């Protein structure tokens, strides 16, 4: 027995040695920190937008001053308030500003200088200045697009009406205008990375509504939509977010962006939130789900992944609309997209903003790709009106609006070839 005790003492000494070795294991920060920095590409590629480098040099405002906009400047309207606020946007504080009136037809398009500062804008928001008879949207776009080169952005405020004159077939005339507009945009997009923001806002309109599809006008005193088109390099325009416009543009209704898409990889990682069934993330690639099993109660298989949308310029509304997502495997569908409110500790390589949940009732095993699509917002479709017959009851729609936006969206679609903003890929195996 004495020998056994001796052995025990030796054992305890060995144990103490190992323990002291263990405490030394804590001093592995250098190695681990280094490791943390070299994490899996698939999982943690953080796209750093280099927005911070670009600054807006000049903001050029183009105010369409055709007669159809006179009603917006009659009295104290939201139109005036919004334009003033727009001119004083904090994002533009350090930039030069220039204000112009714009109107006219094709080669006779007139650009009238108003002034170089916001105070001079007020001079432009008076009825008598809105006296021009014709407006050529395509030409206005062209002028505005031209002014958004380099680090300049241009803002066109318009009622969005394509003036097709006294055409027998306004629809045909519109389609023709669309082709021209499209070409204009394509030409600009070919040479530069231009983003287009369309803001729809409402204001009271007290005056003559000039018909775009026929001659004549009608006196109305009601809410009507107007549109703010912003053109500029996407790196500049991505800094302008929906919230800003929501606050500053009185009567703000909707916003849409058209971006020349470049391949965007944003970080994402599968989580155990909203889980149905079971799975484990493969440590070598956290978006490879292994040991996947459907829910035993027959509720299928469901999982969520967190992602960081902070580098995307899209609104939360856009991002949280499940119809804007598609799954490569028909068995799967996106069932919810929510903003993350509570910290997810398991995600250490990026700060997630949204949680996207996908689900299937069938076999879950596949290589799944979930895409955020670049779609035309529904409000644009809803804003369109094909005729102007009941204008005094129509406070939200604009004649031929879809043609206008189609021209723009198809120009961008042509340039983008692919309709996806970003992809999230998962390998889901047994």
């Amino acid at each position: 027995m004495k020998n056994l005790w001796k052995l025990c003492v030796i054992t305890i000494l060995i144990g103490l040695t190992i323990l002291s070795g263990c405490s030394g294991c804590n001093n592995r920060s250098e190695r681990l920190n280094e490791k943390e920095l070299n994490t899996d590409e698939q999982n943690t590629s953080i796209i750093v937008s280099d927005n911070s480098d670009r600054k807006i040099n000049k903001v050029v405002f183009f105010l369409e001053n055709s007669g159809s906009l006179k009603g917006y400047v009659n009295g104290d309207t939201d139109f005036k308030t919004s334009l003033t606020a727009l001119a004083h946007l904090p994002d533009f504080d350090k930039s030069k500003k220039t204000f112009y009136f714009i109107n006219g037809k094709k080669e006779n398009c007139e650009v009238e200088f108003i002034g170089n500062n916001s105070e001079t804008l007020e001079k432009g928001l008076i009825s008598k200045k809105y006296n021009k008879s014709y407006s050529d949207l395509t030409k206005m776009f062209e002028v505005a697009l031209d002014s958004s080169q380099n680090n300049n952005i241009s803002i066109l405020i318009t009622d969005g009406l394509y003036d097709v004159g006294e055409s027998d077939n306004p629809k045909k005339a519109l389609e023709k205008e669309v082709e021209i507009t499209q070409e204009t945009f394509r030409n600009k997009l070919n040479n530069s990375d231009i983003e287009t923001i369309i803001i729809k806002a409402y204001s009271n309109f007290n005056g003559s509504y000039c018909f775009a599809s026929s001659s004549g006008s009608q006196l109305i005193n009601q809410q009507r939509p107007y549109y703010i088109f912003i053109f500029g390099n996407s790196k500049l325009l991505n800094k302008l977010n929906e919230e800003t416009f929501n606050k500053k543009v009185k009567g703000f209704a909707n916003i849409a962006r058209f971006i020349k898409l470049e391949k965007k990889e944003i970080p994402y990682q599968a989580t155990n939130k909203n889980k149905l069934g079971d799975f484990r993330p493969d440590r070598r690639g956290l978006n490879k789900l292994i040991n996947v099993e459907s829910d035993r109660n027959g509720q299928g298989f469901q999982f969520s992944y967190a992602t960081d949308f902070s580098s995307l310029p899209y609104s939360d509304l856009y991002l949280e609309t499940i119809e804007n997502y598609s799954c490569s495997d028909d068995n799967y569908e996106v069932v919810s997209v929510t903003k993350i409110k509570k910290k997810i500790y398991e995600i250490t390589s990026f700060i997630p903003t949204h949680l996207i949940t996908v689900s299937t009732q069938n076999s879950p095993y596949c290589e799944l790709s979930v895409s955020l699509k670049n779609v035309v917002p529904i409000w644009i479709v809803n804003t369109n009106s094909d005729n102007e017959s009941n204008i005094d009851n129509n406070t939200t729609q604009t004649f031929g609006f879809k043609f206008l936006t189609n021209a723009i969206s198809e120009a961008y679609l042509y340039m983008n070839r692919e309709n996806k903003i970003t992809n999230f890929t998962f390998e889901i195996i047994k």
Partner: protein
Amino acid sequence: MKDIFATIYEIWFQLWNSDFSLIFDTLFDDYGYIMFGVSFILIPLILWFLFYYVWNYPYGKFWHWLGWLIITSLFVAVITLVIANNEIFISNNQALINALDDPDSGYKQFAESLPLKYASINGILSIVVGFIYSLILKQFSKIQMHLPF
């Protein structure tokens, strides 16, 4: 190696919990699993080496062997308990530290049960491993070859 040990604890013994995956990822990345594995593999090897080649008491009986098996198991369990405590509660992973500090996360409560579980598992594994070592080491032992049988 990490994968093998992770499989043992997470899958065979089903310790994995997806709600607290940060703990297990920390153990995986920070070599906690390796330490556990070393504990139940290496310590019994040393102890059984001592038993078969250093302990020269020529009247060893089965209960001596059994007692040593239990001592080994307890020893491994204690060492594992200490390692697990260190690796979980004094880790280098700031995210885990934050999670443990957050009472709403549930991490602390869950984590507190883990060291004992790992210790128990390692205790059991050390018995199995110890038995295997016995069968191998006894072949070359001069004095304790007859143990356990």
